[in-house]
C-alpha cells in the first residue's frame, strides 16, 4: 500500500458502517446475478459458447502480433487514423493533441473503462478541456465527483434520493424529486444539448475485428452513437487485447456479453463502425499500458481475455458487501484484483486478498478466466516479492512453524481451547479482526486427534 492510502479492508470498513445500505447493495447486485442465470439458462448451448469464446481468446493472445498488424492495416484502408500508446500518459497526450489540432475544448465521452484506467478526464481538465460523460450512471458519478464503482453499473452504490439531490443542484430538478423516470428525463434533456453542441466524441471499443478493421461498441442508452454520429471527430480508445480475428466471432461474443452483464438477450445497440462518416475524422488509439507485460506472465495472461461484462463482480460475496470503491482502482471486483497488481504490485498488493476464493467468479465468467486461481497465485507472488501486509506475513510465518512441528501444533490447540474457555478476552478483542461481527464458537472439550485416539481403542 502507498502510505496514506487506505487498503481494501479499511475502505470496506467505511462502507460497512451503514449496514442497511450494505444489505441493499448486496441484494441489488444479487438480483442482477440472478437475471444473468435466467438469461444463460435460456440457451442450451451456453456452456459451448463459453468454451468457444475462451478458445477464440486463447487464439487471439497467441497470435496478437499478427492480428494487431492486420487490424491496423485494414482500419487504415477504411480511412481511420490509427495511433499507438505505450502507456496512459501517451494515450492522454494523443487525445489532447487531436483536440488541439481541431481547436476543440469541449467534448462528450461514452463509457470507456480504458479512459478511467488512464485518468483521461483529469488530464483533459488540467489542460482546459471539458469532458461530459454521457452514460447516465457515469454522468451521475461525474456530478458527484466520484469514480464509477462498477464497470457496467457505474452508480450502483447510489440511492435515488442522493441522485435526486445531485440533479436538483446541477440540473435544476425539483427539490426532493427522486423518481427514476423523472430524473432520467431530466438527464436526457441535459445531455441532448451536449450531444448537439460538442464537436468531438470519445467512445470505448468492445471488440475490434482484425479481418475487416471495424470496431464494435455496445450500449443500451445509445449514447456512444449519439456522440459519434453528431461529431466532427470521433476518437475510439481500446486496449490491444480487444482484438478478435473474424467478424463471425461476434456471433459468439454478442450472445455472451449482455446475458452475462445484465441478463439482457443483447444490448440495445451493437454498433459496427467501419469507416468515418462523410466529412468526419475517425481516430483509433491502441493502448498497451501494461498489457504486453501481463501477456508475458503465464499465470496471469488469461486476465486479458476479459470482455468487461461485470458478472464476476455481481456474483462476488466480497464485492457485494464491500462496494466498488473499496478496490481503489478503475476496475473493481475479482477481475480488477487480478489486473491491478500487474500495473503496480505494491499499490494493489491488498486486492488479491479481498476474496474468499469461493470460485463463483470463475464459474460465471463468459470467457472462462480462472479468476480465483489467479487471485490465489497473485497472493503467492505478492508475499514472495515482499509486498504483503506485515501482520499477514507474521501470522503466516507463525502458522508455518506450528504446522511443520506436530508437537507444537498439539500444544497450540490445547492452549487455544483452554484460553478461549477461560480467558476469552485474550482472543476476542479489537486486535483480532476475525471476531469483528462474529460470535465466539463453543469451545470443544478435546481435539479431533484426542477424540480419535480414545474412540478408536474402544
Amino acid at each position, binding site marked *: 500500500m502507498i502510505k496514506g492510502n487506505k487498503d481494501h479492508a479499511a475502505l470496506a470498513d467505511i462502507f460497512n458502517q451503514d449496514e442497511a445500505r450494505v444489505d441493499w447493495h448486496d441484494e441489488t447486485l444479487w438480483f442482477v446475478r440472478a437475471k444473468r442465470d435466467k438469461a444463460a439458462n435460456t440457451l442450451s448451448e451456453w456452456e459451448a459458447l463459453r468454451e*468457444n469464446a475462451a478458445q477464440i481468446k486463447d487464439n487471439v493472445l*497467441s497470435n496478437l502480433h499478427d492480428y494487431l498488424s492486420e487490424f491496423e492495416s485494414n482500419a487504415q484502408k477504411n480511412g481511420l487514423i490509427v495511433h*499507438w500508446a505505450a502507456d496512459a500518459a501517451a494515450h492522454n497526450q494523443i487525445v489532447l493533441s487531436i483536440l488541439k489540432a481541431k481547436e476543440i475544448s469541449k467534448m462528450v465521452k461514452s463509457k470507456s473503462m480504458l479512459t478511467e484506467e488512464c485518468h483521461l478526464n483529469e488530464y483533459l481538465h488540467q489542460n482546459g478541456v471539458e469532458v461530459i460523460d454521457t452514460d447516465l450512471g457515469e454522468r451521475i458519478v461525474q456530478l458527484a465527483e466520484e469514480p464509477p464503482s462498477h464497470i457496467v453499473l457505474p452508480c450502483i452504490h447510489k440511492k435515488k434520493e442522493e441522485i435526486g439531490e445531485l440533479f436538483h443542484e446541477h440540473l435544476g430538478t425539483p427539490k426532493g424529486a427522486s423518481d427514476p423516470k423523472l430524473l432520467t428525463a431530466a438527464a*436526457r434533456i441535459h445531455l441532448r444539448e451536449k450531444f448537439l453542441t460538442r464537436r468531438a466524441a470519445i467512445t470505448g471499443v468492445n471488440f475490434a475485428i482484425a479481418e475487416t478493421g471495424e470496431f464494435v461498441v455496445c450500449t443500451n*442508452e445509445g449514447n456512444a452513437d*449519439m456522440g459519434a454520429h453528431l461529431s466532427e471527430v470521433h476518437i475510439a480508445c481500446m486496449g490491444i487485447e480487444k482484438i478478435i480475428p473474424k467478424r463471425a466471432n461476434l456471433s459468439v461474443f454478442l450472445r455472451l456479453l449482455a446475458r452475462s452483464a445484465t441478463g439482457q438477450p443483447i444490448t440495445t445497440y451493437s454498433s459496427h463502425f467501419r469507416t468515418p462518416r462523410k466529412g468526419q475524422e475517425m481516430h483509433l488509439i491502441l493502448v498497451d499500458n501494461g498489457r504486453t507485460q501481463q501477456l508475458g506472465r503465464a499465470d496471469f495472461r488469461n486476465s486479458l481475455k476479459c470482455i468487461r461484462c461485470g458478472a464476476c463482480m455481481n456474483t462476488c460475496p466480497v464485492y457485494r458487501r464491500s462496494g466498488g470503491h473499496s478496490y481503489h482502482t478503475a476496475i473493481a471486483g475479482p477481475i480488477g484484483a487480478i489486473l491491478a497488481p500487474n500495473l503496480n504490485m505494491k499499490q494493489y498488493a491488498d486486492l488479491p486478498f479481498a476474496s474468499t476464493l469461493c470460485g463463483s467468479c470463475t464459474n460465471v465468467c463468459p470467457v472462462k478466466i480462472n479468476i480465483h486461481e489467479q487471485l490465489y497465485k497473485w497472493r503467492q507472488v505478492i508475499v514472495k516479492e515482499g509486498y504483503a501486509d506485515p501482520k499477514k506475513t507474521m501470522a503466516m510465518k507463525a502458522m508455518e512453524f506450528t504446522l511443520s512441528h506436530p508437537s507444537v501444533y498439539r500444544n497450540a490447540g490445547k492452549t487455544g481451547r483452554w484460553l478461549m474457555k477461560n480467558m476469552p478476552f485474550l482472543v476476542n478483542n479489537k486486535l483480532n479482526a476475525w471476531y469483528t461481527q462474529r460470535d465466539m464458537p463453543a469451545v470443544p472439550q478435546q481435539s479431533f486427534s484426542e477424540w480419535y485416539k480414545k474412540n478408536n481403542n474402544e
Partner: protein
Amino acid sequence: MSSRAQILARVKENQPTLTNLPADLTGMVQYPDPVAMFGSVLDGIGGMMYRVKDYEELISLVKTQFAGLERIISTIPELEELTEKDWQDLPPHSYEDVDVAIIKAHFGVAENAALWVTESLMGQRVIPFICQQLVIVVHKKDILSNMQEAYQQISNAHYGFGTFIAGPSKTADIEQSLVLGAHGPKNMTVFVLA
C-alpha cells in the same frame, strides 16, 4: 523506436505458443416459429411487434398510431405519402426534432429481437438514434433464429456503419429501475411484413 514498433515487439516477445481457432459451433438454438419468438422477446425488452399483410395495412396503422405527430421521415419509398420529402442531405443535428423515423432492416434475430440495419437503410447514421420514436420494417422470411445465422447472413458485406438494434433506448442506472428513452427513441415498433 516508435510506440508502434515497441508495442508490437513486446507482444511478439510475450505472446504464448500459437493455438488454433476453434471450429464453428453447430446445433445452435432453432425456434419452430421465429416470428413469434421475436415478438415475445421484443415485448420483454420494451418494444412492440405487429404483423401486417402489406404496406397498405402498415400505412393505416402508422396513421393511427402516430396521429398528430409532425415530423415523420422514412427511407422506404412505399411510405412516401406519410413522410417529409427530401430530408436526407441535411446536417445530422437537424434531425433532433424528428418524431418518428421509419426504416427497413436487413433481417431480425428471434433469440434477442435484434434487427440488423446498415447505413444505406438509415439515410444518415444518426437517424435511428436521434429520433423520438423508431419504427423498423422487416420481412417475415427474414426473421432468423440465432446470431450465428445472423453473421452468416452478413458474411463479408461491405458497410461503413451497421448496427443491431434491439428495442428502445434504455437505462437502469438509477437503482436498477428500467426507464425507456435514455438518449434515443422512447419506444420501438417493428412491423413484420407477410
